[in-house]
């Protein structure tokens, strides 16, 4: 009995130490030849290359996020439904990692009306630095394509307030461009846990 308890403690302790986030998305097993032997390798879902323009008119690509982890979401500046709440919560992420060079934020605008100038004004009003938090715009179909890659649905819908339909998730991407966590960006409690997930990811070896 004592033995079992002891073993259980060890197992529990081990779990505590190797806290890792899951890798989200579909995975594929691929056979590769390494030194003449066939080895099965797991290929995870990764975010493909992209290129958008941020609030300073600068080009932002997947290279911008190389060697960093980043949080991403989809919004638009005139969105009257969930965006203000999302931005209030994203500001928590911003404040927490403002001085942490390992973390960046990428918010995609899904409105055709959000020009660079509009995004610039928006950034000024929520008082954020473009070095840390990129508000980007681009071709609508490119934005839509990327949303799918982050498992976020966006849609033009004249019946929706503001003209667009989208969900308010935050998505956490690791240095290997794999998706490691998501949360409901309008829910403060969910975001609380997400912030802890970010710390776990930063501490992964």
């Amino acid at each position, binding site marked *: 009995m004592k033995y079992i308890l002891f073993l259980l403690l060890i197992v529990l302790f081990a779990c505590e130490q190797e806290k890792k986030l899951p890798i989200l998305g579909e995975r594929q097993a691929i056979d590769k030849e390494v030194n003449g032997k066939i080895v099965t390798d797991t290929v995870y879902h990764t975010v493909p290359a992209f290129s958008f323009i941020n609030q300073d008119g600068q080009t932002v690509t997947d290279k911008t996020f190389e060697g960093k982890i980043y949080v991403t979401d989809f919004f638009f500046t*005139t969105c009257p439904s*969930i965006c*203000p*709440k999302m*931005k209030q919560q994203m500001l928590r992420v911003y404040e927490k990692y403002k001085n942490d060079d390992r973390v960046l934020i990428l918010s995609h605008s899904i409105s055709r009306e959000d020009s660079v100038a509009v995004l610039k004004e928006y950034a000024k009003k*929520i008082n954020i630095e473009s070095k840390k938090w990129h508000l980007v715009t681009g071709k609508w179909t490119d934005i839509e394509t990327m949303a799918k890659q982050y498992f976020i649905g966006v849609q033009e819908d004249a019946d929706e307030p503001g003209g667009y339909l989208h969900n308010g998730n935050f998505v956490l991407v690791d240095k290997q461009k794999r998706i490691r966590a998501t949360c409901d960006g309008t829910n403060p409690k969910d975001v609380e846990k997400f912030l802890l997930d970010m710390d776990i990811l930063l501490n992964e070896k």
Partner: protein
Amino acid sequence: MKNKLLWGALPVIFFAGLLIGNIFVFKTKEQGQILYEQHCASCHMEKGEGLAQLIPPVTKSDWLAQNPSKLACLIRYGQKGEITVNGIKYNQPMPPNSRLTEIEIHNLVNYIFNNFENQVQKRSLDKIREDLNTCN
């Protein structure tokens, strides 16, 4: 005989208790609060603090104290252009809420006036009707 009467009274007392309990529980949310949560809270936030320099607060708002007759129109037709609240200039359009009835606007206005640390005098339904007739 006495016992029978007592047993007969028990269900009556039980259901009366349920009814009173219900009234007590559901009384706590007035229509104004429900409307605020449905139509206002996603931008002005649950506690009324607004968002940075983008969306003005409804909490402790000097604009409300100075313009009590303008809130009804603002809710119904939305807001465009610059508005200064507590010394900060905001310029983000607010969408109209054209489906709200006069009575709903009345309840919403008074809920805002009496909560969020505001102390603005309640407005009667007649006053709200007058306000709505003078919208620009």
